[in-house]
Structures are given as C-alpha cells and as structure tokens.
C-alpha cells in the first residue's frame, strides 16, 4: 500500500507538471524538453499505478469497482491526489 501511495504521488505530480508547465512551455514558448521528460515519466508512473492497483485489488479482495474507480480518477488531473486520500483513509 505504501508503494502504491508513492506511485500515485509521482503520477499525480507528473501529470500536473506536464499539463500546467511542460505543455504550455512547448506550445507557447517552443521549449519541448520538459514535456519530453515529464510525458514518459507520467506514462510509466500511470502504468505502475494501474499494475499495483490490480495486484492489491486481487490480493486484498477489494470490493468490486473500487480498483476501477481508482484507475478512473487517476486519469483526470488532481485525481491521483483524491486516490491518495482514499487509499490513506482505508
């Protein structure tokens, strides 16, 4: 669970930095390097987040839908931080 929370934090932070800093820098200022680093980082972090959620959902026999809900909220900006709250409260 600790690893999942750490990955969710990385995923959420990378997503926010990508969306609000790297993408505007690329399209408004023509500086593409931050997006080139943060894009792959966010991609790998999201895959790791989904993988860990799948493992924990089966291992700890989570109720149906909880893992799907946590994956779905990881797809939206700030969603991973809500997932963190949900994972910390249970």
């Amino acid at each position, binding site marked *: 669970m600790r690893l999942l929370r750490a990955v969710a934090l990385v995923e959420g932070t990378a997503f926010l930095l990508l969306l609000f800093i790297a993408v505007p820098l690329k399209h408004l200022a023509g500086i593409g390097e931050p997006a*080139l680093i943060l*894009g*792959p980082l966010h*991609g*790998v972090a999201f*895959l*790791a987040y*989904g*993988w*860990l*959620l*799948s*493992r*924990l*959902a*089966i*291992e*700890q026999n989570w109720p149906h839908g909880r893992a799907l809900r946590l994956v779905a909220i990881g797809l939206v900006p700030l969603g991973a931080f809500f997932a963190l709250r949900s994972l910390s409260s249970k």
Partner: protein
Amino acid sequence: MPDYSLLKILHITAASLVVIGMLLNSFALLRPLAATRLATLRRWDLFVTSPALGAVWILGITLAISGNWFASGWLPAKLAFVVALSALHGMQTGGLRRLARGEAAPAFLRFSLYGVIVSVVAIVLLVSAKPF
C-alpha cells in the same frame, strides 16, 4: 538517444520474458502447484517477469518517441492491449500471493491464459501490420 535497433532488440527480449512469465503464472492459476514450485514461480515473477514488464514500459515509450510513432493510429490501440496485459499481470501476482497464503485465487483468473494469448496476438498483429 540510444540506437533504435538496440532498443528494439531489448524491448522484444523483455516482452518475450513477460509473455513466458505470464503464461507460467496462468498455468499456476489453472491447476494447483506444490508449495515449493509456487515459491519458485513467485521468485521468477519477482526477479524476472516484473522487472521485464517495467523494462517493456520504459523501452516501449523510448522507442515510440525516437521512432515518432505517437502520431500513428495503431500505437494507441497497441497501448490499450499493453495496459490490459499489465493489469492482468498485476492481478496474476495478486492471485499468486493469495495462493501462497493458502487462500483461493479468484475464479476468473483461471481464464487469464486466454487474456494473455488474445492480447499478445493483437499486439503482434498491430506492431507488424501497422494497419492504421
């Protein structure tokens, strides 16, 4: 950026290790294994299959960037199968952990073999034919 051919060789090697590991996991979830064999399989998964899956993600994204493949239509379709296969591997490892604790794995994981085969065939077709 490393050589594209070298990245491709490493990516295919890592993907092959993932497929072999996931097929082994599928058989273990299909029929009960002796405790020692289950422990060996879980060690194989921890030290070979799971790191290979991480390598597949990193090498795949690097290949997609260096080959400019994100502009192609087949790549998002392939990524959907990669995400599904990764989630299936996560579920398999969760199931194996439950078996190691002496609990039953969820019944639907008995069909994970078919999920692995369908996803691998779809990925190979999309990558080799690049239909769109």
